[in-house]
């Protein structure tokens, strides 16, 4: 078990390095892998995680799918003595705002949050999630609401963000409208499995007869 703990520690360090090198680009698959490794690490060690590790784990929950209940249960697992820490309380307040869909408050809290090792990662993850949500929920949106939801402090900051990411955001909106169902490898796999099963059933019946 000790070897496994060392391996997990090395993987976590490598994730930290990758996140730092990636800057403000957010990769949801990487976030999911990072989270799963961190969860395994929490189960493997004999002691509690450190305060920074709990903060980072909470941040990872916020930027991945289906995060609500796991984040809530993580908060319940954290020792009571640690819950007095300011940074931990701050990150939990962010979680509460996200939980209640109070996006403007969450955006503001994320701007002000500096704890743990993943505060920038949280910001880029939040932008990624909000862009997806705005595409999903709004046919059109005014500048003020957009700025409020994303947490930009000024029109200038908003413009800088959009001009940097414009190539990603704009085509996504168009792509969502024109999405068609196309046959891909997973559909073919399913068909193949079904066909093999039906063939086998037919052969077995003939044998029995």
């Amino acid at each position, binding site marked *: *078990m000790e070897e496994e703990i060392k391996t997990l520690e090395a993987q976590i360090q490598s994730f930290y390095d990758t996140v730092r090198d990636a800057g403000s680009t957010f990769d949801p698959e990487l976030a999911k892998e990072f989270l799963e490794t961190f*969860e*395994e690490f*929490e*189960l*493997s060690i*004999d002691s509690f995680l450190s305060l920074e590790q709990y903060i980072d784990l909470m941040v990872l929950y916020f930027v991945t799918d289906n995060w609500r*209940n*796991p984040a809530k*249960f*993580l908060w*319940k*697992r954290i020792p009571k003595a640690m819950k007095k820490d300011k940074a931990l309380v701050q990150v939990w307040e962010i979680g509460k705002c996200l939980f*209640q*869909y*109070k*996006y403007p408050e969450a955006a503001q809290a994320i701007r002000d949050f500096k704890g743990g090792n993943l505060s920038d990662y949280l910001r880029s993850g939040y932008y990624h999630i909000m862009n997806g*949500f705005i595409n*999903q*929920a*709004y*046919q*059109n*949106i*005014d500048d003020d*609401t957009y700025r409020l939801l994303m947490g930009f402090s000024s029109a200038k900051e908003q413009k800088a963000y959009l001009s940097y990411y414009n190539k990603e955001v704009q085509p996504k909106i168009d792509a969502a409208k024109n999405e068609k*169902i196309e046959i891909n490898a997973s559909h073919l796999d*399913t068909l193949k*499995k*079904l066909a093999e*099963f039906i063939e086998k059933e037919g052969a*077995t019946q003939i044998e*029995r007869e």
Partner: protein
Amino acid sequence: MDKVIKYAKDLKKLEKAKDYNSSFEKFNEFIKRDAGKAFNFIVGIDIASYTVPITYILNSIYRNRGVSEHINLKELIVFTRNFLYEFSREELCRSSLYMLEFYQLAEIFAFTVGPPESDRPHWPSHVSSAFHVDRPLLGVKPLRRAIQKLQEKDTQYTPLHPYFAMLCIHAKTYRQALPIIEKKLLSGFVNGYQDLESIMNYNYYRGILFTGLENYTEARHCFQLVLDTPYQVLHISQVQAFKKICLLVWLTSTHNIQDDDHKAVRLEIRNILQSKGMLGKQLEEIAEEYCKSESINNFFIQTNYEAILKDTNMGLVKQVIKKIRNEILESMTQTNTMLTLEEINDRLQVHREVCDALEEKHKSETLKQLKDAIMEDCKLELTYDDEDLNSILIKMIKSGKINAKIDMKKQIVVFDDKHTSIEALVKKLESQNDDIIQVLNEVENTDKELLLQKKAGIHDADGQDMPEFMDGMMFMDDV
């Protein structure tokens, strides 16, 4: 100390478990006298080679209340975790007696790191509370690993399953339990023992875990398995499971827009009661308490919050209330392609009358606080303004309950649910097909194994040859 080492090495040489057990009784005396040295000895040896002696020694240490003074508890827990991780399956499978000792050790360990004795009404008498450490998280990964090691296939039940599920609930690691609990169990463990109560307890814990993961369909299925366990009198777990089923039926029923009174829900619960026969009559009183309502609005008024709070089912009740509110909004998508925010607001105002009636009925302070907590949680405010309504709509869109887009310029909501719902249905059917194929393959493989055994000349329990007409049909009948 030399005698301890000699005994441990001698034990390893023994071929028959019967001799092992009788030798170990003498060895146990050394453990009681010199537990610290016995523990130091086993810490230094290879776990895989000495799996059986270590199992017996650890069991002896945990059961002897007097030895807790001589051993560092933290080191003992750490060593036991390592042991459950690195034990040798082949060594244990040499005899069912060894396996029994191993299961008892796992049980003791689960209760040692699990919740305290005062919280558990069924604390096993052989588990010493002298060693108790309230950190259930410590037991999750070792038990998970032990289960995966013991299983020949991942659909095989082992007696460790209920302890693992119990620890996951207390450690609040619901998602981490999924690799084990999501597997459908189709066979028992060969060299072990499985009693009805432990399987029932496992299904009950599974139900709680799936409820925590908000997979209400699977949770309901698990609680139904608990209810279907054949007892002549109702077990307490079955009563608790039925109460949860009453609420889960609300959460898993598909809303029919014509059925404003949710007759389908009440019919399902009546069917469950009828299927239990005489035992169903005892459950009728419980059903009365939990499911009195005859209409959507009456659910809020007639629900017995006191009983539900006592049974710690408030979380489920809140989910039911939310679902009913969401159904009102969903039903609008079936009759309208767009609605103004004002119209939606008017429709949801029906809850104002309900809230007034609730306030009138439950005047006691405790229940008033309860009601406030529920309303806060479900955002059922007495009056709506656009901002509140916006946040409710955003919640529902984000969680996929309705497919709609808000048009801020025109202040309308445009609904669109054709494409996504069909795709979701197709995905659901595909996953159900996969499950069916897996189960049928398992059945066929087991059938083939039985046929091969018959051809090899293995007889049934009475020493008779299997009747010819049962060729290939034996296991299928059992299924």
